[in-house]
């Protein structure tokens, strides 16, 4: 179990990558002649871009080591800064600051301020939080920053950031290399040097490294941990901003694209440095830059492999994560009460909920409810499409419940699994749309989950999340865009025998029923021995092993289950969209949104998946209100604010509400049900403990002491001084003397 060195899975992955490289190179070779000059130019370009990745990744690592928070919003901060820089320096209608001045203003003033602000209001509370919460909050912040940038600077407008020195440069043979690129390399080298000096020669730098060793001891030496973490955030944001601004001229300048480029490369480079070593991180950044630029130089991005350049960082990430040593079984972790204490739903409640859901959906869709003043009427095609989209996403979200909610395996790639289901269905059912193939698709998806589980089984926590991220990206950038996978086919309507779900209404009803059945099945599964075992494994892997649970096998089973659920959901997903747009449907942000909303709602509860319909409900509501007229500010609030910023804000809100909204509601609600005696007793126990803590020391649970009495009198304002002259105690409270 604890073998080190090269593992079979790693060897397999390396060989597969190499073979893949050969195949892709063979098929996509652009036919450019290889000369010394062209090699040199690609290398300089690679070093330049790589330097920027290195700068960005360094910021990520500094923040992670010093504060323990892995910042998925790192790229988002860079994106926001780059757009701010554009506004200050490049916008023709803007204030038109000189480039250098704008650069300094953004990198040295605005970005650090953002970093410190984030640290003060959010990140400090996260240090002791559950990993899922940590990840969700920073991912939520990323989504929020990207939305904000997109709203402030309309994302659909094309704009660009110019090179420094207006693209002038120095010719190598027939190729021009811009001064900008040389400058970037010089700047990166200077930053590396400065960081080295900072971290090894100054007190605050040494303290930042000391925190990695032993956080408590750092405080015991008198270093202010709060200041250290603020400084790290300021530094990290600054580096993100610098990288974002300097890389902007090299890429398509849109929030999502810039974030993709920066974030994934930074994560991969940081992973190569095992999230600790800055020199290795820099090497990682340069390596990715070089690979990308040589890829761009020598391969054509024609039909078969359109996005190989974007796949390089994920491939590096994937290999690095696989090469990491075995995560040890955790023993001796201090048990705290922070982990979600989950409340199980009994089967009757689950059945009731499922039936109620179906009834409500039918009543609403047919418009059988008349509110008197307002008769909504039956749903039109738009409303039905909204409902379908909502239920499809909810169905995919259900697949996360056993995997992440119960077994604690973080998965950022639900759509990658769903896409595989869609692909299988296309191959198996073809034109017929025969629904009987759906269970078969589920069965065939399970092995994919099992394979991912074999890669993931050794990992835990953050690295597992990164692996799933790499998996999502590999599927999105390499596999699915291949024209053989999703040819421009449209999916046929679903049919069972001769009955075809040819109207949107029928399809919607079918979806509701499928969802309700799945939800009920999950409620039953949670109460089965499998569900118990998975939850037990998440609570303590070490303890689960000591009662005889085979941890690896259990993980394989739960991954397979989740993949099967996601694959079946993927069939409905594809059919609801009629066709798959392989370039956009599997985007990271789409994956993130599902995981974020699930987490904000409460990953452990199947019913929480309904929460994923949030955005569609908001939009539908906004539309309805708009039709009804008048409600101006409210419509704006729903449409422009809640629907767009909601997912990010909800996830950020997990800083406070760590267990998820549905959990909190359930916690308040369950004790009200007459048959939930257990919930009432738990509530009573919790309250009792809180109260005993509060007043235990004051003399209610122990005999009163003179000091306690004096303290009470002091609090009540009856005496002024809590340490009165000797003898006062006994004079005022003679009874106490013999206590």
């Amino acid at each position: 179990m604890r073998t080190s060195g090269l593992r079979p899975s790693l060897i397999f992955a390396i060989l597969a990558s190499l073979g893949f490289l050969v195949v892709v190179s063979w098929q996509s070779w652009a036919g450019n002649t290889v000369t010394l000059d062209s090699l040199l130019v690609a290398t300089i370009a690679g070093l330049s871009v790589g330097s920027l990745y290195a700068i960005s990744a360094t910021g990520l690592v500094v923040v992670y080591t010093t504060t323990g928070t892995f910042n998925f919003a790192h790229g988002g901060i860079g994106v926001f800064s780059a757009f701010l820089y554009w506004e200050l320096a490049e916008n023709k209608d803007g204030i038109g600051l000189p480039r250098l001045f704008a650069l300094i203003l953004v990198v040295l003033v605005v970005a650090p301020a953002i970093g410190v602000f984030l640290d003060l209001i959010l990140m400090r509370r996260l240090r002791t939080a559950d990993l899922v919460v940590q990840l969700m909050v920073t991912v939520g912040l990323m989504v929020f920053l990207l939305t904000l940038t997109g709203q402030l600077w309309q994302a659909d407008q094309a704009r660009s950031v110019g090179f420094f020195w207006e693209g002038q440069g120095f010719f190598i043979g027939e190729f021009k290399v811009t001064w900008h690129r040389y400058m970037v390399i010089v700047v990166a080298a200077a930053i590396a040097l400065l960081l080295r000096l900072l971290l090894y020669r100054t007190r605050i730098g040494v303290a930042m490294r000391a925190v990695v060793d032993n956080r408590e001891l750092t405080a015991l030496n008198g270093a202010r941990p709060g200041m250290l973490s603020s400084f790290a955030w300021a530094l990290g944001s600054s580096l993100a901003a610098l990288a974002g601004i300097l890389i902007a001229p090299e890429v398509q300048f849109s929030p999502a694209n810039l974030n993709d480029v920066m974030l994934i490369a930074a994560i991969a480079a940081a992973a190569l440095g095992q999230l600790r070593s800055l020199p290795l991180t820099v090497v990682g950044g340069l390596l990715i830059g070089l690979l990308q630029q040589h890829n761009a130089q020598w391969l054509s991005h024609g039909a078969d492999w359109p996005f190989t350049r974007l796949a390089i960082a994920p491939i590096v990430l994937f290999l690095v994560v696989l090469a990491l040593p075995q995560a040890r079984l955790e023993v001796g972790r201090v048990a705290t009460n922070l982990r979600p204490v989950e409340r199980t739903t009994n089967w009757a409640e689950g059945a009731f909920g499922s039936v109620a859901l179906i009834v409500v959906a039918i009543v609403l869709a047919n418009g059988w409810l008349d509110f008197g003043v307002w008769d909504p009427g039956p749903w039109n095609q738009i409303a039905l499409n909204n409902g379908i989209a909502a239920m499809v996403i909810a169905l995919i979200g259900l697949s996360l419940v056993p995997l992440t909610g119960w077994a604690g395996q973080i998965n950022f790639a639900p759509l990658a699994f769903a896409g595989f289901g869609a692909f299988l269905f296309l191959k198996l059912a073809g034109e017929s749309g025969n629904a009987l193939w759906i269970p078969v698709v589920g069965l065939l998806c399970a092995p994919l989950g099992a394979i991912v589980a074999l890669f993931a089984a050794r990992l835990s926590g953050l690295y597992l999340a990164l692996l799933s991220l790499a998996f999502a990206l590999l599927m999105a950038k390499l596999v699915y865009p291949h024209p053989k996978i999703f040819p421009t086919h449209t999916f046929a309507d679903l049919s069972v025998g001769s009955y075809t779900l040819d109207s949107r209404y029928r399809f919607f009803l079918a979806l509701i029923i499928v969802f309700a059945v799945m939800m009920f099945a999950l409620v039953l599964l949670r109460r089965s021995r499998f569900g118990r075992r998975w939850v037990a494994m998440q609570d303590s892997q070490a303890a689960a092993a000591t009662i005889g649970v085979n941890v690896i096998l259990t993980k394989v089973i739960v991954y397979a289950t989740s993949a099967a659920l996601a694959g079946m959901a993927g069939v409905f997903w594809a059919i609801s969209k009629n066709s798959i747009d392989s370039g956009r449907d599997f985007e990271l942000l789409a994956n993130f949104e599902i995981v974020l909303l699930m987490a904000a709602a409460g990953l452990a509860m199947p019913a929480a998946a309904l929460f994923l319909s949030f955005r569609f409900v908001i939009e539908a509501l906004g539309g309805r209100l708009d039709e009804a007229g008048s409600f101006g500010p409210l419509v704006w609030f729903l449409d422009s604010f809640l629907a767009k910023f909601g997912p990010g804000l909800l996830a950020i809100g997990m800083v406070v509400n760590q267990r998820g909204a549905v959990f909190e509601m359930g916690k308040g609600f369950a004790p009200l049900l007459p048959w939930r005696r257990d919930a009432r007793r738990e509530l009573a126990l919790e309250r009792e403990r809180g109260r005993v803590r509060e007043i235990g020391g004051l003399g209610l649970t122990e005999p009163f002491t003179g000091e306690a009495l004096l303290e009470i009198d002091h609090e009540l304002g009856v005496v002024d001084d809590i340490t009165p002259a000797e003898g006062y105690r006994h004079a005022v409270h003679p009874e106490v003397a013999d206590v």
Partner: protein
Amino acid sequence: MTTAAPLLELRGVRAGYGIIDVLHGVDLVLQPGEVLALLGPNGAGKSTTLAVASGQIEPSSGQLLIGGREVNGARPDALARSGVCLVPEGRGIFPNLTVTENLRMMTFAGTSLSAIQEKAYELFPRLEERRRQLAGTLSGGEQQMLAMARAMATDPALLMLDELSMGLAPIIVDELYSQVATLARTGLSILIVEQFAKTVLGVADTAAIMLHGRVTRTGRPDEIAEELTAAYLGIESGGHQ
């Protein structure tokens, strides 16, 4: 001016980790200039008491008073800068920093690096030879000397030592404790948590025994010794209930 308040006082302190309560009402007083030995078996709550006194764990009820002032909720770094120095259990050093860098970490309390270096190297010349070495590669005794250097060099007002002798050879333990005795003679107030009771009792003015999260007995060291053996080996309470 009032009569001097105790330098450190715990009144009915309850505290613990997460949901686990370790201290069930600890009362403890350390007078200025006194050396107090806190003894007791594993798991009695000695280290937790130090964690409370240094601000690492906040009491869930009760009071922590330092210099007569209630400081419940004070941050450990703030207490450290004002002169409360805890050398924690299991080597209070940063293994991945060099010796010099470890000494640099001690400058947060206000002493300059050169002053700390001078004093540390004077007391433990071995450290100077190793100043570029990573602290994690030092021997156990050298690591503990490095940790002790902070106590010697940063001029604390209250020094707390947790299991100084753990895993060290007796000769080195003696050497370390002779330094502690030197410190005690300068009038420094010291709270020592130890298992090697005999060594400590030679240095201490007062001793306290801790059992099950409470201080059960306080007295002069020679009075305590017998009871201590019983507490460690369960002799007195032997026989079935």
